[in-house]
């Protein structure tokens, strides 16, 4: 069932051209839907419209099948976690968590019970009487999470909740969030520009660019079956190598006639080692190594070929010498894109 539905949503600020035009999106109940895209793609705007903090210029927004235009943010049964935590600085942790419950006139005994429960769940038990200024970034974000969870909302809206944290903490809280999602049985809508976060957090990923949806799919679909060059480039680290098909054709490599671009993932290519000619189901590209990066469990090579510069990720920790090497890619790992940058299925 669809928990949230956007129908022909358009959003424009003042008299500027719209940031989002005629957007249609369905978010199914119980999913963890990640809105992913570069900054300025409209992902936060979508989230804020769902929360009711931003009014849609045109179109309909439905929650549980009901049009919510004109419904106050507080009455939409959603909770939101902000990037900068947005805690009330003059209230202590407990008061921060309690504020929403008080406004809902939930009796004191019930409030106490819920706060104790949640504080334990997010590991804030001993900090309840502290002020936000006395907490670290990670602890503050936990308070923000607790403040959202305690209201038992049907939908959690998260606006880049991890981007103010340092890398180590980010990984830790990301895992906590996944656990939380499994525990709470609610719908998560999660905004991020970080594709790793999106892949790990999402059951569905909505990839956006300039206010338009480029692709919707599960993480394996988005990674394995990119529908266009944008998706191919955005997902994966480093991103997919995109080479000009013209150049490859000229080198007598088998490329479908209508293809304009050819892509392959750096981790699907193998470099060096096999001096032999490519096997039947492989293509070989010659190139010189421009740079090597030892990343611990893998080595990243930047390779200059006649077809352009590309990356190769190798799990063979024997570092190759600079110089000319051959790169082998299986035919099945090659992606072809047409003139409109859409993927061609061959």
């Amino acid at each position, binding site marked *: 069932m669809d928990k949230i539905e956007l129908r022909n949503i358009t959003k424009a600020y003042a008299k500027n051209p719209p940031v989002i035009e005629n957007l249609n999106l369905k978010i199914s109940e119980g999913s963890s839907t990640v809105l992913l895209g570069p900054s300025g793609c409209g992902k936060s705007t979508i989230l804020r419209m769902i929360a009711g903090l931003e009014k849609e210029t045109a179109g309909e927004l439905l929650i549980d099948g009901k049009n919510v235009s004109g419904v106050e943010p507080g009455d939409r049964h959603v909770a939101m976690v902000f990037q900068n935590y947005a805690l009330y600085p003059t209230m202590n942790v407990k008061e921060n968590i309690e504020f929403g419950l008080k*406004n809902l006139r939930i009796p004191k005994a019930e409030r106490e019970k819920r706060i104790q429960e949640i504080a334990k769940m997010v590991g804030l038990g001993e900090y309840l009487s502290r002020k936000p200024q006395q907490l670290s970034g990670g602890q503050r974000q936990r308070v923000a999470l607790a*403040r959202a969870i305690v209201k038992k909302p049907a939908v959690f809206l998260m606006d880049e909740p991890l981007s103010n944290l340092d890398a180590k903490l980010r990984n830790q809280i990301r895992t906590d969030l996944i656990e939380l999602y499994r525990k709470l049985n609610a719908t998560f809508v999660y905004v991020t520009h970080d594709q790793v976060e999106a892949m790990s957090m999402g059951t569905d990923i909505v990839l956006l660019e300039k206010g338009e949806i480029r692709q919707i799919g599960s993480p394996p679909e988005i990674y394995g079956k990119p529908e266009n060059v944008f998706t191919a480039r955005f997902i994966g680290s480093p991103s997919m190598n995109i080479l000009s098909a013209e150049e490859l054709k000229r080198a007598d490599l088998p490329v479908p006639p209508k293809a304009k671009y050819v892509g392959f993932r750096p981790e699907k290519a193998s470099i060096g080692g096999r001096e032999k000619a490519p096997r039947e189901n492989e293509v070989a590209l010659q190139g010189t190594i421009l740079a090597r990066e030892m990343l611990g469990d893998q080595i990243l090579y930047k390779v200059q070929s006649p077809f352009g510069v590309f990356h190769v990720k190798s799990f063979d920790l024997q570092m190759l010498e600079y110089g000319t090497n051959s790169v082998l890619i299986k035919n099945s790992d090659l992606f072809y894109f047409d003139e409109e940058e859409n993927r061609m299925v061959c």
Partner: protein
Amino acid sequence: MKRNVLRRAGRGLAGLILVLIFFAPFYWMVLTSLKTLGQTLKMPPDFWVSDPQWRNFSEVMRRIPFFSMLKNSIIVTIGILVCQCLTVIPAAYAFARFQFRGSSFLFGLTLTTMMIPAQMIFLPLFLMFSKMQMINTYASLILPSASSAFAIFMMRQTFKQVPDEIVEAARLDHAGEFKIMCRVMLPIARPTVVTLALITFIATWNDYFWPLVLTTKDTVRTLPVGITALHLDEGGIDYNVLMAGNVLLVIPVMIAFFFAQKQIIKAFTYIGDK
């Protein structure tokens, strides 16, 4: 090591000089209030009194209706503070958070009222109050200061510094606009509120001009008017009695400062919670 000591000594000395500059007039006032009339005119002056003349204070109370004027001062000051809270906070909140038709025009209009000197409007104001038969009432002393453009401006700036997300979080926490203003925004703005209240308190408490213009009888006059009347008494000026009156006048201000110190420092070093 040696340089460090020198630097610290220099800093201490500079501090001492500053303290002296601020403290000396105050000390002189208290000292004079405890002298006899003869001692006040002595040359060279005494910097200490061995037999303080406490009777100067009772003299103040004999010459002017001190307690009735003190009561008037308190009523007018509290009246103005309450009125300003009721007008300034909602106005500042509205200017800070809402874009409504004419909002910037109205805000500009509010600011221009700061540029009109009191001396220019006291005559029309006097005439207006006198036509309404309001001369010699508390209302005539309170109403001209019932709002303050400066306070609205300061509060608006403070409210504007609060990140939007905090207000949005409160809206998602089922708080209405009034609750957001009172429970979320005002506590954050507390240092500014305290500082503004103190500034208003001092200005009102010490105000001489308006009470003089808008009153003709001692029954509603405030302390500054009364204290000034001290030196008009009996031809000559009794500096000792005058200073005793001044000491009585500033005591409440000192007490207020003492309690508000911390908040004032905070107001000028506001650090948002990021």
